[in-house]
């Protein structure tokens, strides 16, 4: 054992110096290399995680918005169709009423005109009857005077 120690130059002080040297290196590398680098990796990892989560959230929100848009559009279309139908119905009804009115008016006017012509006709017949009678009387007078 003695020989081994002397041949290999094993020396307690040298051993201690090497141990301290390594310990110091361990401390320095841990403090100034491993910890900052691993911390940086962790920071980046959390950042990426957050970014991915945000992207997923945004995507989901976009999908929701998309669905909302479609829903609103569908509703609007439905409502528009309803309105148009209603307007059409209204218009047909109105048309009906107007047609009926016009018909009634026309019938009324026609009746009026018929009645007027009838009356005028009657009047003219009466007038001509009266004239014929007057003429007959005049003729009779003339004949009587000659005689």
């Amino acid at each position, binding site marked *: 054992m003695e020989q081994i120690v002397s041949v290999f130059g094993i020396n307690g002080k040298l051993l201690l110096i090497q141990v301290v040297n390594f310990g110091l290196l*361990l401390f320095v590398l841990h403090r100034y290399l491993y910890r900052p680098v691993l911390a940086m*990796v962790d920071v980046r990892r959390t950042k990426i995680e957050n970014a991915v989560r945000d992207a997923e959230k945004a995507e989901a929100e976009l999908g929701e918005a998309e669905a909302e848009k479609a829903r609103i559009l569908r509703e609007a279309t439905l409502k528009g169709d309803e309105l148009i139908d209603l307007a059409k119905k209204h218009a047909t009804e109105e048309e009906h009423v107007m047609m009926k009115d016009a018909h009634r008016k026309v019938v009324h006017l026609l009746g009026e005109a018929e009645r007027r012509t009838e009356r005028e006709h009657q009047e003219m017949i009466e007038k001509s009857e009266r004239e014929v009678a007057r003429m007959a009387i005049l003729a009779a007078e003339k004949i009587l005077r000659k005689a």
Partner: protein
Amino acid sequence: MEEESIHISLAAEKIGTLWGLPITNTMLMSFVVFAILAVLAFVVRRNLALIPGRLQTLVETLFVGILDYMTETLEDAKLARKIFPLVLTIFLFIFTANLIEFTPGIGSMGWFEGDGEFVPLLRSMNTDLNTTLALTIIAFISIEVVGVATLGFLRYSKKFVNVSSVLGFMVGIIELFSEVARLVSFSFRLFGNIFAGEVMILVIQHFVPMLLPVPIMIFEVFVGFIQAAIFALLTLFFVKMAITEAH
């Protein structure tokens, strides 16, 4: 004649003394490795941004990959994060040292002592048993501490002291031996691999100074990576074994 022979010393060369503490060339090298890693840490930290650059991407990929692997192995994210610094520092420390061991100047810059012996200023860090033993002691203590902290002292010691049966007692003794044997296997594995590589390069350089050492050096850098990975991985696996309760 003296300069022609290959001089190989198992022990690191002492290059000076400071406040009564011996200074060896491998120790100086470990300070250099420390400085390189500290500068790397500083550069990475200064350029740290939410949107990463090239270096940051590399570092992050490496760290997260290792952490994920550790979490998978330990099946405990919190514990993995706790011992992640230890495992990664062991790897980076050993790997950086092995990576720069063939940098020109390391091992070739130095002076001749009075007796004609060459003393290099810098020497590959893991060719000193003091370094590898220090790393092993740190890993060993960490493993035991994690085991005790996770299982509790009584339940952890049951792995080694089991009086329920004769066989269980024997198994406990064997466990205890294998636990202590790690101190030797860990430190000598790393030391032996790197030292052998250095010696091989030295011998080859002695006979064929050009070209041939290059592929061997590339291979040795690969071995250096493997050894660093093995040291770190074994620490991880022994932690896993320490937190697993005895059957």
